[in-house]
Structure formats: C-alpha cells, structure tokens
C-alpha cells in the first residue's frame, strides 16, 4: 500500500511539474502565479499521500497550514498587482 501511495505522490508531482513550464515562460504574472498555486495544490496532495505512506499523522497539520497560506498568498498577489500601484503600467503591459 505504501508503495502505491508513494507512486501516486510521484505521479501527482510529475503532473504538477508541468505547471513549472508556465512559471518559466509566463508570459503574464497571473499565469505564473496560477502555476505556483497549482504546484501548491498538487504539492499538498503529494504531501498527504507521502504522509499516509509513511504513517506520519502530523503531516496533515502541515497540509492544513499550506492550504491556508496558499489562499493568503494568492490574495496578496492579487492585491500587490492591482492595488497601491496606480501609476504602474507594468502589470497592464504584460497581460
């Protein structure tokens, strides 16, 4: 069972790694951030699978923390790009 869970974690990680291409190439900031969020979601999934495979219960707490802070990071990103930079045209040009 542990082997299967680890294989599943590896599969999830490999799929999520495809999102890496979006972080590398962009082109927009939003594309990059969404890819990072995808890696976040997939990473939490892989984390839970690894935790179950190794029988380490507290991994669930790590996953909870990551999930909450990933939502926070995406809001911080949205605010950083849209707010407080009225004279910044960089974000508009990149879209």
């Amino acid at each position, binding site marked *: 069972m542990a082997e299967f869970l680890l294989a599943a974690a590896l599969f999830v990680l490999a799929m999520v790694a495809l999102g890496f291409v979006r972080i590398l190439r962009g082109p927009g900031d939003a594309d990059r951030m969404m890819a990072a969020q995808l890696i976040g979601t997939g990473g939490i999934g892989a984390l839970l699978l690894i935790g179950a495979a190794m029988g380490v219960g507290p991994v669930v707490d790590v996953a909870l923390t990551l999930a909450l802070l990933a939502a*926070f990071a995406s809001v911080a990103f949205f605010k950083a790009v849209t707010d407080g930079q009225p004279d910044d045209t960089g974000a508009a040009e990149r879209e």
Partner: protein
Amino acid sequence: MSEALNAGLALFVLALAAWMVVARDTFAAVVGFVAYGLLLTLVWVQLHGVDVALTEGAIGGGLTGAMLVAAAARLRRTEAAARAERPGWPTRAAAALLAGGVTAALAVAVLALPVPAPSLAPETAANMGATGVGNPITGVLLAFRAVDTLLETTVVLLALIGVWSLAPDRVWGGRPGPRHRADPNETLAYLARVLPPIGLVVGVYIFWVGADLPGGKFQGASIIAAMWLLAVMAGLSDAPPISRGWLRLALVGGPLVFIAIGAAGVATAGAFLAYPDGLAKLLIKAIEWALLPSLALTLALILAGVPERPAR
C-alpha cells in the same frame, strides 16, 4: 519507490532553484520562490523533519512569499532602468568569481563536516522528562536553548522597528499600508469572511499541539497573522495606528513575560531561564501563551508594512 520520489523531488527543487537565480524578472523569480518553499516542505517531510516542514511552509513559503510579492510589485517601476544597464565584463567576471567562490567555500564546508555528525540528541532525549513536554523540538527550544528562542522573538521585534523606521516623519505613528477597499459582494470579501474563522481555529490548534507534536507558536502565529491580513486586504478591517499604547504593549508583552520568567529563574532555580523542578511545563506553556499574540501581531505588522497614512 521512495528513491524515485526523492530523485524527482531533488531534480524539481534544483531546477527551480537554478532558474530562480538566473531569472531576470524579479516578479517571476518571486513566484518561483513561493513554489520552491512548497517543494522544500515536501523535502523536509521526506527527511522526516515534520517540524521543519511546518515552519518552512508557514514562514518560508507563506509569509515570506507574500512579503516578497509585495516588494517585487513595488520594485517593478525601477526594474526597467536596472535592466537597461549592462555591466562591463570586469564587473561580471568579478561577480561570477565571488559567487563561484562562495559556492565552492560552502561546498567544501559541507563536505568537511565530521561523519557521523556530533549530536546531543541522546542527552536531550534522556533529559526530556524533566521538561514535561512531549515534543522534543519544543523542549529544546524553550528549555535547553531558551536563550536562542528569547533572542529570536526579540529579533522579530527589531525587524518590525526596522520596518517602522522607514516611515516618513509626517505619517509617523500612522496606519501601515494603504486603506484597502473591496466590493462587499466580491469573491475577495467573501473569502475574507469565510477563511479567517477556520484559519484562527487551525492557527490555535497548530499552537496547541506544539507541546506534544510538530507545531508551535511561530507557525500558529503566522497563520493567525495571515488571517488578519486577509481581512485587512479585503477592506473588512483596518490596520491600527502604530502609535497606540495597547498595540505597543501587546508587541512587547510576550518577550517581557519571557524575560520576567527567565529572571525569576535566577532566584528560584539558580540560573537565568532555568525553571524550578516540577514547574517546567507550566512555565513553558505560560511563555508560549504570552508569546503567541505578540508574535502574531508582530508578524502581521511586519507584513502590513511601513506607516503610510496619518492616524487622524
């Protein structure tokens, strides 16, 4: 299968790290850093360091990521000018030499480490009973190495003073960051209403289990700080003016309790930060309870940033 997973993770982390170093766009590099923090969390779990994984996820990936995203957005205006400049080859060669030298020195230092590594783990494990704490990390941080933790909490406070010191004179004592406004029917306002209650429970839980399982005040405080900032960013709440007396008191309250309990140790147990027999767990919990609100507030205010508006 574990080996394949480790190899995949290592490859992924190294590729992302290398790309972050060479990326010219600051914002892209910062987004890469957020993903990198998450992958490091996975690596720490694979290394059986769940405590480190939790800290990395909460502080390394979460709060630092949000702070760097805001910094990158602010730097964007000046970035085009910086990119237009191309340093001459002597500068580049010197930079390459310096960076290569540092890397080589680090590699030599890591390779020169004694094997097996000197460890105090057996002594720590043998004496853990004296602290009454179930999680050895918490025991080490608040009993055997309490001075380090005291300095650590003071450093966070000093960082906040550093952030505040960047405020222009006319808004000194004012409110940090812009006043955020959002449509109350927007997704953001909805998220900021739904998530913080859940986040607060999780934050306090992570803090609470720290006595016996991975967790603790820093991780719990960073979640609580993030939840409060979420409400601020959605315009549901506003950051308090930094001149408020209760705010200053709350910031120094935790470290003061820590120092007071430490000083009491001189009289009751014969050394600074020593705990009298039988009272260790109680005092450790008292310090943690006092530090949690101070740390949450300090971390939140560091992220909220420099005062930008007068207090009125």
